[in-house]
């Protein structure tokens, strides 16, 4: 029974490791400038976690196999290393390991959060509401018109509560349901929540940031690969949460300008 149990643990441990080793399931390809550090951090951690996982499961299996068979007259013995040895091991191995992880992790984190956006970064505003994202481009004047919460009306597609008649800045603002950005151009994303907490999760961009109602946040990133990617909400926001998504089109500068012109015409 015990030997069978030991084998089971072994088999499960190995089976669980196989998809990881064969990389069957993996994050979508990274298209951001800052994402590489995150991916390295992930694989780094994957190695350490994987080794500790396999090592300890195998050790457990072996101990169960070895010490479940009570030989006649065998007395219990104590682990030679003693408790203190193990404690020291835990402190040295794990302590160093996780501290190393933590310190390297800071780099990946800092790339994203502790570097200010460049002055030439292109501003885009995203508004999250139940249950859709809407995006706003400042237009030629480069200024966003103020948001009037009382004027917000989805019925007339005034998602941002703009008042072009009284706010000159709002006149040329371009509101879209999809997000398009030019490739290799830094984007400064202003995040505004209309109703409840949402999250802006673009796996391909290695971007994940919650919207905080009443507090506008700002993140910045650069996409390096042309294509169509998914933006999803990852913060439970109500019954339509599962269907709260939008598309991110990374276009060449030329295509982007055309797209923006087209959208402007439809305002």
């Amino acid at each position, binding site marked *: 029974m015990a030997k069978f149990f030991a084998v089971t643990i072994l088999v499960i441990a190995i089976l669980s490791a196989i998809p990881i080793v064969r990389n069957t399931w993996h994050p979508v390809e990274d298209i951001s400038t800052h994402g590489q550090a995150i991916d390295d951090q992930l694989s780094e951690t994957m190695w350490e976690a994987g080794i500790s996982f396999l090592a300890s499961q195998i050790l457990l299996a072996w101990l169960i196999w070895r010490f479940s068979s009570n030989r006649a007259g065998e007395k219990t013995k104590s682990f030679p290393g003693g408790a203190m040895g193990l404690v020291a091991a835990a402190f040295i191995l794990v302590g160093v390991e996780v501290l190393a992880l933590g310190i390297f992790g800071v780099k990946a984190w800092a790339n994203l959060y502790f570097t200010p956006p460049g002055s030439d970064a292109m501003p885009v505003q995203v508004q999250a*509401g*139940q*249950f*859709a994202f809407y995006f706003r481009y400042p237009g030629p004047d480069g200024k966003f018109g103020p948001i009037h919460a009382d004027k917000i009306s*989805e*019925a*007339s*597609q005034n*998602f941002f509560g703009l008042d072009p008649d009284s706010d000159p800045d709002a006149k040329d603002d371009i509101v*879209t*349901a*999809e997000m398009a950005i030019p490739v290799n151009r830094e984007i400064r994303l202003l995040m505004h929540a209309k109703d409840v907490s949402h999250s802006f999760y673009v796996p391909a961009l290695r971007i994940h940031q919650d919207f905080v109602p009443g507090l506008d946040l700002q993140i910045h990133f650069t996409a390096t690969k042309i294509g169509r990617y998914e933006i999803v909400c990852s913060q439970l926001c*109500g*019954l*339509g949460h599962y*269907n709260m*998504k*939008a*598309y991110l089109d990374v276009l060449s500068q030329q295509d982007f300008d055309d797209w923006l012109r087209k959208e402007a015409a*439809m*305002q």
Partner: protein
Amino acid sequence: MKAHYKTAVTTCALLMLGFGLLYSTHKTINVSAAAGGTITGTIKLDGTPPHQKPIDMSKEPACAKEHASNPVTTETVVVGPMGGLRWVVVYLSEGLDAGTASQVPSETPTWDQKGCQYIPHVMALDVNQHFKVSNSDPHSHNIHPLPAPNGANHEWNRSQPPGTPPFDQVWAGQEVAIPVKCNIHPWMHGYLAVVKGPTGVSDANGSYTISNVPAGTYTVTAWQEVYGSQSQKVTVGAGKPTTADFTFKAK
């Protein structure tokens, strides 16, 4: 003494019975007469209608595909070829007698969700009239009507997965009009106008018809989701059609 008391009771009883009879006959008479009178008319918009923004449905690929060839726009102000104003609810705001007001049509209209749009965009219902909500799309919708708070009607909000049977709903009190939203598809927006008595909703040419109007003098009110309400007095003779046209001014 006792005798008097008894007679009093009997008379009261008789009187009540009499009134009761009168009332019931009164009602039946009305219904027969009601067959005749109709109010018709056209609703026009004076001035240039506001720009209707095109709707981007890329969030729901199925709907985006469905409307790929014929892009949809908002329907806040829909003007027909001859300047006829569509989706205007016309109803009798005054002059209805209790009998007609209390009648509830037996037919149950359907409020359908198709291609991420409400069909129809505006639907007129009688108080306590049952109507069905159906979903013809291959994905879930949620139906979220928002009646005025603390009124006779109460807010509700429920999803309808694809392929599930239509469900039955009813409104308890008069309200023009209850906005209905789908939160999953924020552009989906429509109105349920709940009014006592016969009503009409203007079609693509802006013309409407209210039938089964008993003879009498009424205040006819037309309601439009952007421009609000207008009223005028009309007198309906038994059997012959009466016209009442409205013109809304574009802001």
